[in-house]
């Protein structure tokens, strides 16, 4: 019982470093300024597809962590330096890993992620189809096991 309590406490405390380990953002020092609506649109679409590395359940667009502010500024600077969206994403993946992408790239390491659900659905479909066919063939057999289904 004590061990369970200790484990629960440890699990609760595991959140503390993540919550604590970021610089005190003294408010959003300088909101980003866009040159035109097209740039703003492109920026918003891009940061919505990037994960905040500090608070991993938020996108870069939504996060208030200081590192997210700085990464947004970096993304805008990279946009203005003439990089296209794919190059900017690759730039961040080189530094923070595949994890920053909400839509991981299709490559051998992510095949299971991309195609696993489809395969599962296909397998389930085949199973249901076969069961249904068997059920149809047996309709004549009287129910003798007292099963409700």
């Amino acid at each position, binding site marked *: 019982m004590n061990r369970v309590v200790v484990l629960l406490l*440890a*699990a609760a*405390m*595991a959140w503390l*470093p*993540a919550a*604590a*380990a*970021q*610089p*005190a953002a003294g408010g959003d020092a300088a909101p980003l300024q866009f040159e035109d609506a097209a740039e703003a649109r492109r920026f918003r679409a891009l940061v919505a597809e990037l994960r905040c*590395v*500090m608070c*991993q359940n938020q996108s870069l667009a939504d996060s208030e962590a*200081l*590192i997210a502010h*700085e*990464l947004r500024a*970096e993304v805008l600077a990279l946009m203005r330096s003439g990089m296209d969206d794919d190059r900017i994403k690759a730039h961040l*993946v*080189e*530094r*923070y*890993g*595949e*994890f920053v992408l909400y839509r991981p790239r299709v490559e051998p390491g992510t095949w299971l992620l991309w195609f696993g659900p489809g395969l599962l659905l296909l397998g389930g479909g085949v*199973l249901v189809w076969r*069961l249904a066919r*068997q059920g149809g063939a*047996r309709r004549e057999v009287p129910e003798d*096991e007292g*099963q409700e*289904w």
Partner: protein
Amino acid sequence: MTRGGMRWIPLAVFGALVVLLGAGVWMSRQPDRDALPSPLIGKPAPDFALPLLHEPERVVSLQDLRGEPFVLNVWGSWCPECRVEHPLLTRFAQSGRARVVGYNWNDAPEDALRWLEQYGNPYALVVVDRDSGTAIDWGIYGAPETFLVDAAGIVRWKHVGALDEAALRDGLLPALDALGDAP
């Protein structure tokens, strides 16, 4: 398949789901499961040129640190976890296994200096990054974070969060030992 065999299918599906969920819980048991694996491991450390905390007019680059392995420890006076790892980091620095370079991140110099004075300075030198220009290159996203860079400037190991005995015993020290075999 007989009818008797078929009625086990829902139970088998349920069992498979239980195994799947159980595996998810089991895999999330490590306390540092939020730590991102660094893509920099095994790659050359990103270059930098940053001023020293104690001599702001002197700029140190990665080139200046080559020749011997060093441990780069990201910290800030605003970071409570940095205080937690501080005694352990100090002991490691005193052991002389490797130079410990401080990476003072997003901090006011006077606060950083006061922090070092109050708790003690384990660092051989401290570089200052106030606007995260270099931090993004290194994939730094919080403090504390600790890197091991070998003599040739290759990143060998990284730890996110406060260093503890386990991270030292199972991470940093073996990584340092491995450098001895293959410099």
